[in-house]
C-alpha cells in the first residue's frame, strides 16, 4: 500500500503520520499545492492548524489543489483518513457529515483516552476479527480545542442507522461534549474516515500504545481496491 500524507502550511502532525504509514507500506508527503495523487493508494489528511485555522478550522484548506485531488480520490472509492484538523477539513469539504465546534468547556484537552471502534458497512473482517474489533477498545491520545462533533439529531440518527459512527469515546471519557460521544465518523461508502484523536501518536511501545496502527489498517481495508 502506498500512502500519501498531505502537508498544509500549519500542519504539525504530518511527520508522525508519515512514520505510521511507513510501517504499513510506502509513504510520502503531498504538499498542498500538488494536484496529482498518481501512485497513491491511501491518503491521510493530518492534524495541525492548516492555514492557521483562520475563519474556521479546516475552512481554507478544503480549497487547496491537493484537497481537490483528495475529493476525486474519495469519489473513486480510495481510502482517506482525516485526523484531528484533517477531520475538520474533511467535514468542511463535505466529504464527511457534521461539523467540529469549540470544546464545550473552551479548554484545549490533551490526554490519552479509550476509543470504541464500531463496524462500518464495508469492513472486510473475518468473524474472529469482528469479535476482536468490537470487544477491544483502543488507547489513543487526543489533543484539540475544537473537537465537539455536532450534527442535527436527524443526521445523527441516520449515521447510527447506517453504521457511519466509526469511533466513540469510552463512557465518561468524552473530552469535548461531542454529540453521542462520537469521536469519529465515516462516509456512507465507508472509504472516508475522520476522527479527532491521534492514532499516529500511538504506534510505538515507547509512547505507551500501538493501538493507533489499527486505525490506519482499518482505513486501508475499507477502501475499494484499485
Amino acid at each position: 500500500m502506498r500512502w500519501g500524507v498531505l502537508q498544509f502550511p500549519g500542519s504539525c502532525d504530518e511527520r508522525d503520520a508519515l512514520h505510521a504509514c511507513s510501517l504499513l507500506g510506502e509513504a510520502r508527503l503531498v504538499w498542498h499545492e500538488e494536484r496529482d495523487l498518481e501512485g497513491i493508494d491511501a491518503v491521510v489528511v493530518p492534524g495541525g492548524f492548516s492555514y492557521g485555522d483562520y475563519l474556521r478550522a479546516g475552512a481554507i484548506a478544503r480549497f487547496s489543489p491537493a484537497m481537490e485531488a483528495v475529493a476525486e480520490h474519495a469519489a473513486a472509492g480510495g481510502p482517506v483518513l482525516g485526523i484531528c484538523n484533517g477531520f475538520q477539513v474533511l467535514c468542511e469539504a463535505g466529504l464527511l457529515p457534521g461539523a467540529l465546534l469549540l470544546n464545550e468547556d473552551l479548554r484545549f484537552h490533551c490526554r490519552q483516552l479509550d476509543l470504541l471502534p464500531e463496524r462500518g458497512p464495508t469492513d472486510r473482517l473475518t468473524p474472529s476479527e469482528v469479535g476482536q474489533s468490537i470487544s477491544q477498545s483502543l488507547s489513543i491520545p487526543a489533543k484539540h480545542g475544537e473537537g465537539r462533533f455536532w450534527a442535527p439529531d436527524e443526521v445523527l440518527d441516520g449515521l447510527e442507522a447506517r453504521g457511519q459512527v466509526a469511533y466513540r469515546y469510552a463512557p465518561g471519557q468524552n473530552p469535548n461534549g461531542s454529540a453521542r460521544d462520537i469521536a469519529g465518523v465515516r462516509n456512507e461508502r465507508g472509504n472516508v474516515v475522520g476522527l479527532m484523536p491521534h492514532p499516529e501518536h500511538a504506534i510505538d511501545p515507547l509512547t505507551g500504545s500501538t493501538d493507533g496502527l489499527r486505525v490506519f489498517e482499518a482505513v486501508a481495508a475499507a477502501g475499494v481496491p484499485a
Partner: protein
Amino acid sequence: MARARVLIRPKEGILDPQGKAVERALPALGFEGIGHVRVGRMVELEAEDPERLGELCEKLLANPLIEDYEIERL
C-alpha cells in the same frame, strides 16, 4: 466596488460556549440582567460583484450547517 459587512453567528440551538463564558463573566463586572449572549464574527469586504456575496458566504465565510449569516450592504 460595493462595500459590505457580513455578520456570522452560531445557529439557534447550537451551544455557544464563548457566549456562555462572556455571560458568566458579566455579573462580576457589575453588569446584571444580561442574557442570551452569542458570539459570532464580522467580515468587512469590498466586492466588484455584490450579487455573488451569498454564494461566497455559503461556500466559505459561513458553514451553513452550524452558522447563520446576514449580508449588509454599506
